[in-house]
């Protein structure tokens, strides 16, 4: 008597694959975030190469409360900042810019001015070689060294 062999088909059970896949998608969607990964950069000078910048040898940009700016002591609109800087750089291309910000101004006010200065190569076709952002402590130290109260 012949024994008939039963054909058993091998199968991989994939019924739960959809559940697992959707669970993974939901996990990634919830935990992933499209975060900002760009910004304005600036390098701080090392101790050995820190040049002392005098206010009179530089372009002094002061951001006051409310976002208005004073350049070398006079009020200038943001659009007028780079043309003024261009005039000064024509006389001395190495002239540094000191960006001071009032403690009562906002971070956004300072960033708008810093961004404008960084656009010098595209807007006025000139490069500002040094943009210095001194902290309040550094300014006070300088004033005390110069004997200014």
């Amino acid at each position, binding site marked *: 008597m012949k024994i008939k062999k039963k054909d058993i088909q091998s199968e991989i059970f994939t019924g739960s694959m959809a559940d697992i896949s*959707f669970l993974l998608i939901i996990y*990634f969607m919830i935990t992933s*975030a499209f975060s*900002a990964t*760009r910004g*304005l*950069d600036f*390098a*701080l000078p090392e101790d050995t190469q820190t040049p002392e910048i005098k206010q009179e040898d530089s372009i002094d940009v002061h951001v006051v409360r409310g976002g208005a700016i004073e350049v070398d002591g006079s009020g200038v609109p943001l659009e007028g900042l780079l043309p003024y800087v261009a005039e000064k750089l024509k006389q001395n291309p190495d002239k540094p810019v000191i960006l001071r910000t009032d403690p009562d*101004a906002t971070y956004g006010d300072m960033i708008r001015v810093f961004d404008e200065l960084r656009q010098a190569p595209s807007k006025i076709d000139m490069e500002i070689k040094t943009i210095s952002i001194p902290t309040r402590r550094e300014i006070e130290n300088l004033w005390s060294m110069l004997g200014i109260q």
Partner: protein
Amino acid sequence: MALIRGRDRKGAAQIFTASMADIVFLLIVFFVLTYKVEVDRTRMDLPDTWVRIKVPEKAAVISISPPDANPPLTIRVSTGEEMSLPVSTDEEIVTFASTEVARNPNKEFIVKADDAVPYERIDAVLDALKQSKVKFIYLLSDQKTVAE
């Protein structure tokens, strides 16, 4: 004998799902490739700028929460590899930054702050970073558009 008429035969309704697996795997692959752990999840309105440089991936992060957050103006620090932790004094920022600079003298730092944060706080953070001999700082921003 009852005849089965054509209209009485009920065909089972089916949704074609064979391509679903392909789509699902495509989505999974996309998320796996683009997945990044965000070390600081403080929600804020970053300032907008035209000039934007790509920040290094493993840079340390110092975030300052918005003035209307609860609690307001909280400073959090992260090494760039671990989740951010709050700090309460400027001295703690100096300690944190000095430790990171001691490990890697060229360590980059990202300052992530809300547009409305008073500059006084930013000044304190920048001062702490300068005291710690940090060389490279990135001020995180969003892309400015013409409408703005």
